[in-house]
């Protein structure tokens, strides 16, 4: 298997598990950014 094929496989696998990868990343971001949510978020209008 060439490096290119390996990279493509890795990318496809990451896409399949995107939700979980982003989820772990999200919790890490929250953990590192404590305290979060001390203010009410102000929605600017959608």
């Amino acid at each position, binding site marked *: 298997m060439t490096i290119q094929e390996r990279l493509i496989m890795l990318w496809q696998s990451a896409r399949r598990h995107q*939700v979980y990868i982003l989820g772990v990343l999200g919790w890490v971001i929250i953990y590192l*950014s404590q305290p979060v949510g001390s203010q009410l978020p*102000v929605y*600017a209008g959608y």
Partner: protein
Amino acid sequence: VITSFELYLLTLLLSVPLYWFIGGHSRHGQTALLVAVSVLLQFMLSPLILVGSAAAGAFIAMLWLANMRGVGADTLKPLSWLVFLLLLLPEVVPGKVLASSMLGERAAAVDAIANWAYLGLSFTVIRSFIILRESVSENRLHWAAALSSLTFFGTFLAGPIVGRTPFKLDERAKRLEHASLIQALARLGWGLALLLVVAPRLNGWDLREAEAYAGRAAITWLDIYRSFIALYADFSGYSSIAIATGLLFGIQIPENFRMPLLARSVQEFWQRWHLTLGDFISRYLFKPLVRNTGKPTLAIFVAFVLVGLWHRISWTYLLWGIGHGAALALHMARQRRSKGLDVAPVHWSRQVLAWFVTISYIAILSKIANVDSLGKAGGLLMRLVGMA
């Protein structure tokens, strides 16, 4: 001090296990718990939100009573639009006055809360409309599902916009699957990070210091992209949390975004951004307008002007509606002209250009919509071209 972040997690931690415990005995008990928790949360955030929900609920009940007394679908359908009149409520009753009288000591946060309540109202109104329309076409209210949809704390502030269908007992999961739980926790983490860390950090980034190194116009452009990406982080983060919350209660809330920042035309943007609003526009505004006028380009324009005013009744949101409506109408007119002709594949450089122009155009419209007055919007445009 309990922050909104902790409050949300605490609510989930307490209500989700109780919800599934009750589910073993009574599924209607589950609905009752869901509504009770939602109403309590709405009250804690702002009594204003509860006022909005109650008014919308009363409107649904009124029309449904009329239906039971024999008023037909042909009368009820146009009447259901009247629910949008509730959007005038904050215009006739100054939100700040109302909020400070209701909140007392918490009045310091009045601006934030009034804003929040306002937005909650926009979504409550549109949700009520869809619930009414679904009920009229199925000739059944499904009141428990309607009530849970109207109040559900996962979606009440900012969607995704759903009617009562995913809240019906036979649509809801009977047990919390392991896979759903893991997926919900992942989406919750990503959504909270976007909403509570990424969006506020982007918005809080002080660009005035950078003005020493770059021109004022360049900083204004940077500010526009920054605000737009922050808006996307905020909104998609919120939707992600809502979908995760739905999953935890066995309720399937639809997706709201499909990588909107990749859009290469305003039309494509609306196939990727706020999908549930797009569904509403297409089903209840665009298609009926086409049927009545026979002019799709006029219909899309009018639909988006109205949607602009749904966001907020102001001159700047009217401009937002005109901007989106005009771009979509032009796009549609061009597509109709080239129908049947052989269209050559578009070169990648033109696609990149189209992407850049589209995202810039939409980001400028979003920024304009959220300034206080037309004068300020004009000033912003002048700064963009280096004339102020």
